[in-house]
């Protein structure tokens, strides 16, 4: 069986061949299955951005391999080109990539590069616009006339319109206010539910990842430090803190409650979950 994305011994150096040569990522072995929603966490400089730039061939490994659907993307030029469309990458602050005269044209840029027919392009633009909540009346406008939040949606639509098998988001909520962040998280969840695509989210927000991901990969010092379900990873709070990552506040509350001798689980990472547990506990308390 082949995985949607698989890396074997993936290594990349900065300043290769000089005295300052350092590994940006070192011997990374990962398997990402079709339809998964994977969260990649790590502090700045942990190598997570370098890692995802390898998934669609923006960076070439210094050693090791990246397989998409079981095929080495660096096999030949054609495969590499195809991998760009198979694996869509939405960078941090994607609104800074907008350039076309109209929103429509900007969303169509990717599909046009794929050399699709006009009809197909139109269909895809409409679909992507609907997904991201870009209003129909905005399609004819200049993207530069939109508000910050609207620009971000257009930019995301510009990657979604390529309808990639895998969609990667690098810090999708960066700079957004709570309302914008919640809307974006729901957008990503809906997209995944409706298309069944594989989604990878890179973030340093443990809260965001906890809300979305099926599986978490933690990057530290250029390599994979942990991977597993949200439960498995988030329960290792002390190790995460040592890597400069903050566990969600709610997880911290439960850790401190345990320290106070309360019999509560440690794998709590959303408020709803925590409230349900505590409600039972408090009822029991008052019943006594």
């Amino acid at each position: 069986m082949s995985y949607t994305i698989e890396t074997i011994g993936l290594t990349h150096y900065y300043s290769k061949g000089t005295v300052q040569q350092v590994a940006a990522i070192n011997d990374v072995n990962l398997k990402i299955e079709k339809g998964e929603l994977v969260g990649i966490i790590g502090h700045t400089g942990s190598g997570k951005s370098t890692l995802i730039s390898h998934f669609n061939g923006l960076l070439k490994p210094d050693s090791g391999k990246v397989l998409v659907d079981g095929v080495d993307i660096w096999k030949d030029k054609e495969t590499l080109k195809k991998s760009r469309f198979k694996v869509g990458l939405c960078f941090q602050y994607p609104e800074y990539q907008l350039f076309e005269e109209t929103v429509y044209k900007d969303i169509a840029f990717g599909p046009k590069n794929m050399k699709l027919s006009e009809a197909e392009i139109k269909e895809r633009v409409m679909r992507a616009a609907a997904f991201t909540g870009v209003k129909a009346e905005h399609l004819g406008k200049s993207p530069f006339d939109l508000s910050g939040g609207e620009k971000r949606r257009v930019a995301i639509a510009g990657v979604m319109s390529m309808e990639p098998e895998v969609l990667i988001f690098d810090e999708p909520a960066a700079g957004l206010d709570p309302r914008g962040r919640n809307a974006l998280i729901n957008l990503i969840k809906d997209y995944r539910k409706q298309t069944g695509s594989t989604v990878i989210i890179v973030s340093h927000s443990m809260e965001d990842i906890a809300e979305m991901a099926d599986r978490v990969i933690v990057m530290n010092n250029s390599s994979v430090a942990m991977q597993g379900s949200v439960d498995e990873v988030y329960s290792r709070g002390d190790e995460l803190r040592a890597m400069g990552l903050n566990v969600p506040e709610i997880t911290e509350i439960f850790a401190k409650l345990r320290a106070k001798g309360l019999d509560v689980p440690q794998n709590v990472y959303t408020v709803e979950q925590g409230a349900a547990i505590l409600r039972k506990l408090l009822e029991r308390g008052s019943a006594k």
Partner: protein
Amino acid sequence: MIRDITIGQYYPGKSVLHSLDPRVKLIVTFWLIVVIFLCKSFFSLGLIALTAVAAAALSRVPAKMILKSLKPIVIILIFTAILNIFYTQGGETYFSWWKIEITEKGVNTAIFTMIRIVSLVVISSLLTYTTTPTMLTDALERILSPLKVFKIKVHTLAMMMTLALRFIPTLIEEIDRIMNAQKARGADLETGGLVERAKALVPIFIPLMVSAFRRAYELAFAMTCRCYTGGEGRTRMKQMKIALRDIIAIIFCAAITAGVIVLNHFFDAVI
């Protein structure tokens, strides 16, 4: 990593050359360049070449780096040497074949010109190796400040240069980011003819311009907030003071000039 780029070719150090007043360094460099062109004989040029070598040693900049600065001019050197060998005629003939004649004068001129160019490049790159771009801009501003009399906005020009130096690395990073974003959307930047390639730059150029304008706008706000109102009434934290070593450098320069003039007088001119 792309953010590690350094503008200019400053080589950090604490040598005498590093600690000279940048204004003095700037003036001395120009002065020596003029003197290079005054040299007429091998002896006077030799004096300059010796000075260049001595200065390079004093700067403690590794010889490898200085040789690196000569790399881009190798072709020019070869080209001028060939031209001189074939087109300058006179004196004893070393070699003759068909219409080509290599004469004593030709060879001498070629060697002379080569030493001259090499000295010139070594001396001017020592300036940039031992002085940061910021210090150079500062020095230029101070040297040119008398031009204020002619309503030339020296401070504004220097400020613009400083800001350019400050933002070049930031914008290079930005270009890298935008290029990656557009490549991820399938933009093809590497193939196609000239026209196609030029067209392919539009998706990079426009976001870059938009971002540069946004940055300029925000920067202007930030500078206003920090009470910037132009050069009038500004003081500077880093004062430039002429020290003993600066005076020595200037006297040394004068001595070399005198030496060149004397040597020119006593020995045969090559050109």
